[in-house]
């Protein structure tokens, strides 16, 4: 039994062409949590197997300081 390393927290499907608000795909709600549970290992495999397209974006995260939320 291979223990999965870490978790997939969320998957936002599709792209949002709407220039006024953020659209989310609710079609999965037709099938419920089971469909999400089935899709998650496939997504996990895809992100592991796909080669990185480019180095990670040059984002500098602020180092948390005491009192940060």
């Amino acid at each position, binding site marked *: 039994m291979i223990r999965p390393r870490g*978790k997939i927290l969320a998957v936002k499907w599709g792209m949002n062409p709407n220039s006024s*608000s953020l659209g989310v795909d609710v079609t999965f709600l037709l099938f419920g949590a089971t469909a999400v549970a089935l899709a998650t290992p496939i997504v996990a495999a895809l992100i592991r197997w796909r080669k990185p397209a480019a180095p990670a974006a040059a984002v500098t995260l602020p180092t948390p300081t005491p009192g940060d939320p």
Partner: protein
Amino acid sequence: MIRRLRALLAGDPELAGARASRLERFGAIVQLTRPRALVFVDRERARSLGLDGGAAWQGPEALDAAPLSAPLEAHLQITNRCDAGCAGCYTGASKAAGSGEWGLVEWQRAIDTLADAGIFHVALGGGESTILPWLGELAAHARARGVIPNLTTSGLTGLDRLLPIAERFGQINVSLDGLGDTYAAVRGFDGFARADAALRALRSVKREIGINVVVTRANYGELPAIFAHARRRRLSEVELLRFKPAGRGATIYDRLRCTDAQHRALLPTVLAASRATRMRAKLDCSYTPMIAHHDPGAALLAQLAVYGCTGGDFLVGVKPNGALTACSFAAPPPPHGDHRPSALDLPAYWNQPDAFGAFRSWRAAAEPCASCAYHALCRGGCRVVSAHRGDARAPDPECPRVVDHRAAQPREKPRLPVV
């Protein structure tokens, strides 16, 4: 399939579906282009992909503990020019260009800034952005910087210019607020035939074409028929947008906004239409309270990244003059010193403690949001609707839970004057 195999052999990252990624406090966000998805992973999973957040991974790990390191997407209103004159236009677009509208060079520079910040997508809109002769050049520039451009159009004009460049966009949606006469009832003029012709023409050159529907009480009853129409046209999705009290829409908001009963019935109506037509259904962020009303489970919604107001966090808007906003419906934030932040100032403005004002204040919610199991996802509903009713920080007044909560409050008795 053959194209895909060739792409894999040639190492074409776009077609082969290579991944890009961005570090976050909670871990990372990984982008897949095939299938199209943004995958949020925790720190341990990010490490297994070879990513390392260093010191930034020392703090709290919860996804909603702090804003993202940058938006996922930016909504660029690249012009406010539009000939349509829709009665409820949220930008108040007109035939004349507004003063100080940016041109191609400024927008390219903005996309450079957004790309450097790690943004994944831009949604180009207006006004009617297809009237701009440099739209294709801007889309190509975004692609070259690794940012996927998406587009909304009315389909009423600029089609000849759009068809040859359609493939540069990830997804193109045509605004279609009703079929036949209903279109005119919502928009104030009869444009259905032209918008529908645009749908057919675009679909003949590209698969990822969909419909955007601004839902009002005038077209609510027609939603199943709109889904069926999308199916007949072999489109990829129907995206439903809540009517917002912004621009010209503010003046007719009370006449056109959906009723409470329609809001409560929205999710089952949409899912039934989606099931009947096998058509992908999307709801915009302002509809999250209406989804939560049916209690589908907070964990499931979190897995599907169903969030409410993420203005100034997952998304930002940029006005035609470059002014940065929390979302397309919001006014630009107050000047910082003597300078109003533009898209070029995003990296410096993003981490300011008071950035985007009310849009980042959702954690300090009043009841009934504070005790709601969906609050961390819904974030109090649409700030623009709340602002229209007087307080941008107040719970969304059209959320069914808020409606019920207010109805249960004892009414204050009118006091007699003391003589």
